[in-house]
């Protein structure tokens, strides 16, 4: 198995180019599905490999519950630098499990508490809350998907913009965007190299909902205005101005994209363009990642099986 066991830990780097290019060159729906799929494959592979290295590391620790045969030289020879890597893998895997568990727990808690907050309200799909702070959320699950909007935000939007806002939130709920977001969030927790994919997916999911809303409302400009106004009224304390230094944030990019023409639904881009290369690079990375983790897992199981006295 050799060095293959470490490959899936760093192969997420092959997805960085597509994470950067997808938002400009692919339809948001394609980009979201592609990036989430790549992130899911890579995170499973990298966690499996971390687990394999961890077993070798744990077997060396005094007083461990694993069979004695698992710390034999033959087993340890399967992992390069087994002394360091094995011992480092133990806390690393513990950190991954803790971080993912915490993310899942927080996700469940926020959703549960948000649903509980709306318990007394009549069972409509839209909850308009009298609040001076402008906000709008898509709240999935709990037996009934809901759109939560504050009166402060609604009061600042014109009818077409309100329709755009509701269409946007309904698109989130209808396409179950929270599942994509949760997947990439867990992936980014489990392997920090996957963080650019999380950023990219949270942007493309918003763009996806924007495009759906533009189609429902039939007016791209109204959706753009709704987003722009919502962002301007909900901005917090004005940030220190570093004019020209910061790249435009996600909100202006969304508005600019809506002011432009609708994106074409993607045909698979030609290989010899930057986005085509990036896409194939990510696909190849995911495939190599899957193969090396499968290879490592099979080899490791065979070795451990041979080393276990029966």
């Amino acid at each position, binding site marked *: 198995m050799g060095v293959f066991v470490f490959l899936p830990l760093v192969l997420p780097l092959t997805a960085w180019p597509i994470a950067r290019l997808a938002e400009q060159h692919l339809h948001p729906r394609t980009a979201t599905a592609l990036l989430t799929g790549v992130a899911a494959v890579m995170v499973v592979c990298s966690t499996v490999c971390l687990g394999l290295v961890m077993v070798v590391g744990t077997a060396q620790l005094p007083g461990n519950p694993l069979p004695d045969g698992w710390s034999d030289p033959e087993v340890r020879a399967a992992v390069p630098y087994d002394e360091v890597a094995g011992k480092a893998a133990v806390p690393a895997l513990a950190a991954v499990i803790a971080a993912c568990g915490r993310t899942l727990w927080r996700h469940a808690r926020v959703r549960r*508490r948000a649903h509980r907050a709306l318990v007394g309200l009549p069972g*409509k799909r839209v909850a308009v809350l009298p609040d001076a702070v402008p906000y709008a959320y898509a709240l999935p699950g709990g037996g009934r998907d809901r759109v939560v909007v504050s009166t402060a935000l609604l009061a600042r939007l014109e009818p077409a913009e309100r329709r755009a806002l509701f269409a946007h939130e309904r698109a989130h709920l209808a396409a179950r965007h929270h599942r994509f977001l949760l997947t990439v969030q867990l992936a980014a927790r489990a392997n920090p190299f996957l963080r650019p994919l999380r950023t990219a997916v949270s942007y493309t999911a918003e763009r996806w909902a924007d495009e759906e809303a533009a189609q429902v409302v039939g007016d791209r400009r109204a959706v753009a205005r709704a987003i722009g106004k919502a962002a301007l009224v909900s901005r917090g304390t004005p940030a220190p101005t570093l004019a020209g230094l910061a790249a435009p944030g996600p909100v202006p990019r969304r508005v600019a994209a809506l002011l432009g023409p609708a994106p074409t639904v993607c045909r698979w881009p030609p290989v010899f363009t930057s986005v085509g290369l990036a896409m194939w690079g990510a696909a190849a990375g995911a495939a190599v990642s899957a193969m090396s983790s499968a290879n490592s897992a099979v080899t490791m199981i065979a070795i451990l099986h041979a080393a276990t006295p029966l």
Partner: protein
Amino acid sequence: MSVRETEGCGREADVADHPRRPRRRGQGELEALVLSALRAADGPATAGWVRERLGGDLAYTTVVTILTRLLAKGAVTRERSGRPFAWAPASDEAGLAARRMRGVLDAESDREAVLARFVTGLGPDDERLLRELVGRSPDEGDARGEGDPRGEGDARGEGEG
């Protein structure tokens, strides 16, 4: 027993005779129940009255605890009338829901946002950029030759629920 069943239908006896013990309720649900009971009262009511109204299957101390919690949230007011306090609702259910929702949202740090929110925070330069983009008048935009062919779609009439 839902909020709507107990609310303003004048069947206290019915509710009080309810034979089965209802399932365990969440905190928010109890608060909503107590608040809707208070709202059904003519004027301020005591905790004992609220308990009766809810069918008597809650302990007196539970009702007082919930009322105190609602008081801390500013959802009810109280005044002393003789020995017990008289309680009155300060805001309606939507107001209470808004207060609770704010609590949830404030507790959630933006960086680890769990719910898909309509817009995220603006960066240093974003505000100016956004004003430029949004401030462009519609005819200017159309003059740039990017008129959306779907602009005449009949989806415009779609109302929000």
